[in-house]
């Protein structure tokens, strides 16, 4: 099998810069087979680090197309992946020592599962990519091994009808591939998505980055308006929702994320309530008001952040999340508004010398 670089190719697939229109109607038979290795370099790991921290979110891409790993023959297996570096790198490093082809779909730099949910890792793109790469002329067999999590976007009966290739769903995790390939059957455990603490912890940076700016602004404003303790309370609410919540998720009672958030927020707000209640020099009503304010505000913020974490978990159904929104957003809003009003009331009282 020789590489044939199509003449007149504008190079959009080569540069990795703009793959948006790659291949589709603008291209005629880009047939170059690219090369991949199983070795992850320092640059790869650095890229993964940036991806985890949400730096240049859409920039972690590899060029779509057909890759050669090792020394494949026309009978070697074909694995399918996304053009997101973390997906592609997990696959190629798991396949160390295997001679095979990797067909990388254009998922716009999104990982397999998310892309499948959007349909970019999907039947149409798969059929097109088979056509562009000239896969039928490169391998003798007609079998593709897809990651199981690509299934929400791919209809295997349609793929076989339109391309002649049959689809086999491999395990959820690339690391299980060597074991899977011995028999081509997956154990129930290989088919399951879990959400262990490692997976939850890995999401923390992005959750934090997401809310960092408003949190810092609010903390600074509160520092000057109401002092360091209220500033600390704001930071605590955000850290509880974005760091503690993902870590403690399975251990907080009830199944609803919002309720878990209320519970966690209530617990972390207690020290602040106690501090204000014991605060010196405040008349009874003001002390009470000052103590109740964090009890209202912190759980509301934490619960909202907790509810938003549903989008990051691999098990919440749309129906359930919608039910949560209808159930909890009103109380969250009510508590937040009441808390802010109490805070303003206290601030105004202080300014007017009432307390």
């Amino acid at each position, binding site marked *: 099998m020789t590489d044939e670089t199509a003449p007149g190719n504008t190079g959009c697939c080569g540069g990795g810069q703009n793959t948006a229109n790659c291949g589709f109607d603008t291209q005629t038979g880009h047939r170059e087979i690219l090369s991949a290795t199983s070795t992850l370099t320092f640059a790869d790991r650095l890229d993964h680090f940036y991806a985890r921290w949400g730096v240049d979110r859409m920039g972690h891409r590899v060029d779509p197309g057909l890759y050669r790993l090792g020394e494949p023959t026309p009978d070697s297996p074909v694995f399918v992946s996304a053009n997101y570096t973390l997906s592609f790198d997990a696959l190629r490093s798991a396949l160390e020592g295997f001679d095979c082809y990797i067909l990388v779909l254009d998922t716009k730099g999104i990982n397999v599962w998310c892309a499948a949910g959007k349909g970019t890792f999907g039947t149409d793109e798969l059929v097109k990519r088979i056509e562009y790469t000239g896969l039928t002329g490169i391998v003798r067999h007609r079998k593709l091994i897809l990651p199981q999590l690509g299934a929400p976007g791919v209809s295997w*009966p349609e793929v076989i009808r339109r391309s002649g290739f049959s689809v086999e769903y491999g395990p959820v995790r690339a690391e299980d591939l060597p074991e899977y390939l011995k028999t081509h059957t997956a154990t129930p455990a290989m*088919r399951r998505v879990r959400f262990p603490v490692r*997976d939850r912890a890995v999401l923390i940076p992005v959750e934090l980055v997401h809310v960092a700016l408003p949190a810092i602004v609010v903390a600074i404003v509160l520092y000057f308006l109401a002092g360091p303790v209220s500033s600390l309370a704001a930071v605590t609410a955000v850290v509880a929702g974005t760091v503690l919540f993902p870590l403690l998720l399975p251990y907080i009672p009830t199944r*609803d994320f919002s309720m878990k958030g209320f519970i966690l927020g209530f617990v972390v707000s207690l020290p602040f309530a106690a501090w204000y209640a014991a605060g010196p020099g405040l008349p009874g009503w003001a002390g009470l008001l000052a103590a109740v304010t964090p009890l209202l505000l912190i759980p509301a913020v934490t619960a909202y952040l907790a509810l*938003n974490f549903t989008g990051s978990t691999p098990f919440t159904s749309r129906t359930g*999340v919608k039910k949560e929104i209808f159930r909890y957003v009103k109380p969250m809003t009510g508590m937040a508004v009441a808390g802010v009003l109490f805070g303003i009331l206290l601030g105004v009282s202080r300014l007017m010398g009432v307390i």
Partner: protein
Amino acid sequence: MFDSYVETTLRYYPERCINCRRCTQVCPHGVFSEGPERAVLRHPPDCMECGACALNCPVQAIEVQSGVGCAWAMISAALRGKDMDSGECGCGGDDGACCGGGEEEEPSSCCEGN
């Protein structure tokens, strides 16, 4: 009590099942298990409505309204006066990455670079 996840849109018509076992292969939560004659709906509340089973069932024995369970996207849609179910608002960025923080959508391990 405080469990919004009891009901889902998953519907299974066992009389149509031809026991090809695809649903048991694609479901990430073991909602279906293998039976002697046809697939068995084992634990419906575990369904996350990803749609993989219905899309890969060759005889339409499964129906589910698939969609991403992302509160952020749905709240954004509601606030902009759009239909919550339209999926118009992605989770995360404008380019519609999804998972909470936005790197990429539902399913988190989704964000794991599978």
